[in-house]
């Protein structure tokens, strides 16, 4: 390993490759900040650039830098304008945006930057140590376990997203899963539920839906209630400069970062789970194990609520490179695009990569560490400037948010119908928000829908029916866990209510 590490160091620490990391992180952060341009689209855009570079190590280093930058940029826009361009930073907006609205955007961004750095760094170290061993663990999972794992992820999301309203959250999850079945599936070549409309042939666009669920309702609320954008007047810009976090806050987030970096990394390794699940699960876990007072803070601007998803999603990003580099299996949409880029560069990722081209494998790992350092050094000083977005007057900010929402949906698909879908879904999403329906479960259901169905179908084909549920103990165990996750909050709330009634009766 030491020999490989030295090869990697020698490759990564050339002038060109350091420039690649710095450039990639910068481009990623700035584009990732624009709502609607997530890492997937940015990497897709950068692939032609990477291919022109020619050197596989340099190209992969550039793309990895862009990936990290985009994830960080996504968190920035989640915190500042509640417009997560990336699914994996949706959880960051739960506490990041409320904290920014309290005038502490600077603090929220600092916590996000530190957590991302720590998560990514711990992830990179773990990747270095565990890559070969972890690949064999991931190999043990069959499609039935992947299916069950995704069910666990979805139930966990539903269980925490609807506080006291698990039914609504579950309904949203199902709605998202149903929306994912529209269009041509991967396993079946026949279009489903398109009602004969050609534009629905390829299904709904993920970015369109993400914009419609989060950015658009938020923009509409800014229009409806001018008081909502109070920070937008620039009156609180003095507080934004205050990037400091107190000693107590640092102490409280340290264990969160440690736990979530580990958990996020291992979730990221499992194909299909990825940064999104890691961030939501990280948020849910930290919320559940926090003390009662801290639990009430979640959703209102808790620093722990920012640290958990941020460290988890960065560690998971790193983790998702494990199956890509060691097995040649992409763990997420983003790594799938990276896989395409690698093949275009004549590199075949897989178990042989470490043996045949160790310099590529190790250079990527070293550059990940370097990338995280660049993000911290580059982004922390830039935070006050980034936060200036909040000082833009409302009359200009809102048309621009709406415009970027439209652009996000348009660039991905180059189809004006997508814009009409965006407005339609946006109006629906606004109504849902008025009625207290959580929207994150819908989007996650939509993203995981195709993966869930593919693994479900594969398991069904393998076992010629639903026999896989009881024939594979690991699947059964995971599915039971999913049921417990859904039932437990309701049971706990009921018990608490009964106890409260008992007290009132003088029992």
């Amino acid at each position, binding site marked *: 390993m030491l020999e490989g590490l030295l090869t990697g160091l020698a490759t990564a620490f050339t002038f060109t490759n350091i420039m690649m990391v710095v450039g990639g992180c910068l481009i990623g952060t700035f584009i990732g900040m624009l709502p609607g341009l997530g890492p997937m689209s940015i990497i897709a855009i950068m692939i032609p650039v990477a291919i022109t570079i020619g050197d596989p190590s340099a190209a992969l280093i550039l793309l990895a830098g862009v990936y990290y930058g985009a994830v960080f940029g996504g968190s920035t826009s989640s915190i500042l304008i509640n417009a997560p361009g990336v699914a994996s930073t949706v959880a960051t907006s739960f506490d990041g945006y409320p904290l920014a609205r309290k005038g502490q955007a600077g603090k929220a961004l600092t916590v996000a930057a530190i957590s991302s750095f720590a998560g990514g760094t711990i992830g990179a170290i773990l990747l270095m140590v565990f890559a070969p061993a972890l690949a064999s663990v991931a190999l043990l999972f069959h499609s039935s376990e992947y299916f069950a794992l995704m069910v666990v992820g979805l139930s966990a999301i539903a269980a925490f997203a609807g506080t006291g309203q698990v039914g609504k959250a579950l309904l949203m999850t199902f709605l998202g899963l149903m929306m994912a079945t529209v269009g041509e599936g991967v396993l079946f070549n026949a279009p489903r539920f398109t009602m004969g409309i050609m534009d629905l042939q390829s299904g709904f666009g993920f970015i369109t839906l993400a914009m419609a669920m989060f950015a658009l309702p938020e923009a509409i609320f800014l229009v409806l209630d001018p008081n909502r954008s109070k920070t937008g007047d620039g009156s609180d810009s003095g507080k934004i400069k205050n990037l400091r976090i107190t000693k107590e806050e640092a102490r409280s987030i340290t264990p969160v970062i440690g736990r979530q970096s580990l958990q996020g990394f291992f979730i990221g390794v499992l194909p299909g789970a990825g940064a999104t699940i890691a961030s939501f699960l990280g948020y849910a876990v930290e919320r559940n194990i926090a003390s009662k007072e801290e639990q009430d803070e979640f959703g209102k601007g808790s620093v722990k609520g920012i640290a958990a998803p941020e460290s988890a999603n960065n560690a998971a990003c790193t983790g998702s490179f494990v199956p890509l580099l060691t097995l040649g299996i992409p763990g997420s949409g983003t790594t799938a695009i990276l896989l395409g880029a690698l093949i275009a560069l004549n590199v075949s990722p897989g178990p042989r990569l470490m043996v045949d081209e160790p310099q590529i494998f190790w250079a990527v790992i070293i550059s990940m560490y370097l990338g995280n350092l660049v993000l911290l050094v580059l982004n922390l000083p830039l935070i006050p400037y980034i936060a200036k977005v909040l000082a833009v007057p409302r009359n200009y900010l809102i048309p621009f948010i709406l415009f970027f929402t439209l652009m996000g949906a348009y660039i991905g698909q180059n189809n004006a119908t997508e814009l009409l879908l965006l407005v339609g879904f*946006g109006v629906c999403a606004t109504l849902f928000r008025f009625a207290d329906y959580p929207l994150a479960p819908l989007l996650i259901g939509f993203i995981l829908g195709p993966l869930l169905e593919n693994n479900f179908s594969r398991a069904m084909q393998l076992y010629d029916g639903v026999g896989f549920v009881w024939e594979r103990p690991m699947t059964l165990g995971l599915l039971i866990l999913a049921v417990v996750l859904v039932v437990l909050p309701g049971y706990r709330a009921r018990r608490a209510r009964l106890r409260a009634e008992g007290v009132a009766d003088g029992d």
Partner: protein
Amino acid sequence: MALDRWLALVILLICLAYGYAAYFTMDALLPPIMKRSPIWPSSFPKVLVIGSILLSLSIVLGLEKSPEKKDAADINLSRLREYKVGQAILLLGLMVAYALLLRPLGFLASTFLFLTVGSYILGERRYGIMIIVAAIAAGTVWYLVDVVLGIFLSPFPLFLTGG
């Protein structure tokens, strides 16, 4: 009946239509050889729709007690009269107009119009700044997306480019 139950009712109706398609019309098109497979294109939707119908019914019937507490700072339907609903509807209309005009007018003109009219709707009356900001933004975004990133965005109206 509260808004959330009305919405659940609408979802229920959508689910019924979806379920009808999944259970009664989809399989008719399936080739006979596919019918031997344990999984059909309609299998997963069939499972999903049962879950959604049960869940939406439980909300329509009010089986789940929703917590009463309301955050005063958050959006609230009871304050709808204080909200600027007109502005919001006009801006949504503007977005639809942008979607319809993007191709015929070209990116530069439609974006410029969108940004200026958007600010105007929100009450901005400093026309000079409005026009400068919109023009610079439209030009910069077009340059970044089309020239730097290489994603084609037709900049000029159709009648200038000849279709």
